[in-house]
């Protein structure tokens, strides 16, 4: 992806005469933000405030090829501190519920019912149960995730934490921060942990 950033410059070299980049990178960033805010309108549950970036979003947008190591470590540390485990201490729910959540892609879109529960849409990016042929590959396969790792406390806490805030473990991950950003409830995340870890879950068959 380095190529992308270089491309306009390479183009300039090739077209010496008429090709000065109109504005600097920082100016382009400001122009893009201004343009975005003028180009969208509130709809349903999605206000234009959704275009405001938090620290993670701003940093990850600025470094599309990956954060420098020091920034990445710092970001992971601050995000790790955001993870809230359930007061009940129960990290594993029902894998059947988890499967339903993993299949559902609704929630938080401007045309979605804001009162209805959101899905996790896990199958969009991950292989889970082998019964589902239609799975994506943006994320790694999670087939036999629990079979390989067991159901120990540490594994449960990792799985819960990763779903709650993926940025805590991998800066600028493509995976949404389901707990941190209020997409899924504590209970829903626990159901997904069960889908991943429960020996009876089809994921581990």
């Amino acid at each position, binding site marked *: 992806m380095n190529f992308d950033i270089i491309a306009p410059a390479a183009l300039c070299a090739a077209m010496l005469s008429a090709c000065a980049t*109109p504005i600097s990178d920082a100016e*382009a960033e400001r122009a893009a933000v201004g343009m975005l805010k003028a180009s969208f309108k509130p709809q349903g549950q999605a206000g234009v405030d959704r275009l405001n970036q938090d620290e993670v979003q701003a940093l*990850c947008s600025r470094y599309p090829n990956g954060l420098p190591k020091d920034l990445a470590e710092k970001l992971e540390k601050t995000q790790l501190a955001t993870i809230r485990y359930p007061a009940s201490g129960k990290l594993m729910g029902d894998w059947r519920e988890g499967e339903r959540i993993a299949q559902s892609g609704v929630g938080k879109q*401007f045309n979605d019912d804001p009162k209805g529960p959101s899905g996790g849409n896990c199958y969009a990016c991950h292989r889970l149960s082998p019964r589902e042929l239609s799975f994506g590959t943006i994320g790694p396969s999670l087939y036999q995730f629990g079979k390989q790792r067991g159901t120990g406390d540490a594994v449960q806490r990792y799985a819960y934490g990763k779903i709650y805030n993926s940025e805590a473990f991998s800066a600028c991950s493509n995976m949404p921060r389901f707990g941190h950003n*209020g997409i899924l409830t504590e209970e829903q995340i626990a159901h997904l942990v069960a889908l991943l870890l429960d020996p009876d879950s089809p994921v581990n068959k």
Partner: protein
Amino acid sequence: MRIDRLPAMMLAALLPCFVAAQQDTQKEIERYRQLLQDGNPSELFEARGAEHWKAKRGPKNTSLEQCDLGLGAGVVKGAYVRLPRYFADSDKVEDLESRLVTCMVALQGLTPEEAKRRPYSGPGQPSMMADLVAWIASESRGMKIAPPQSHPKERLAYQTGEKIFFYRAGTHDFACATCHGEDNKRIRLQDLPNLTNAGDAQRAFGSWPAYRVSQGEVRSMQWRLYDCFRQQRFPEMQFTSDASVALTMFLAKRAEGGTFDAPAIKR
């Protein structure tokens, strides 16, 4: 008749050898796509679009036949692959849809709101805009994608479009690049073009507008961006907005040199 279910059960039993199964799935999806190529209902939309172009409309009771899509008044052939571009009369970079709005206002006397009234079609509700886009795009079939970059505003559009492509926001932290920044990825069973890679960008940009069989409608690039942003959990992208045109410029430029082969037929 029950015997016929056996192969399916055997397939299920074999699934743990999932590499083979996955390849079979991909192969069959590819076959599905091949079988659809025979007849593209986009033709029905294109035929309507060609009529709309010639139809007198608006307070000035004028057709769009004198609309300048960038290659001179009334030139449709090859116009799509040279858009977006800068237009002196509007002093803006415009894609096909925004240019059509400009022409409907200038030539036909419509208000911008009237011109943008139904940008996308729905069941039983055809869209004149979508039909026009389908037809005009079809008049560039087989040509090379070549958006101009000579005017400073065209280069600015590219530069800001690139920033928008990588802009992460919303409840899910998604940017365009989340799904379209790496090679050989897919969402569910749909291949995701890496739009930063020339080959993928050429194939992707070169296949829109497209007849979506899942919706039974021809969808334009504006619609493609609108619906991507919806699924990114962004607010609603306004039709022909500056951000949409800048992003289209970025994508068109990434696809430069590719052969335009649209309207295509897709899931």
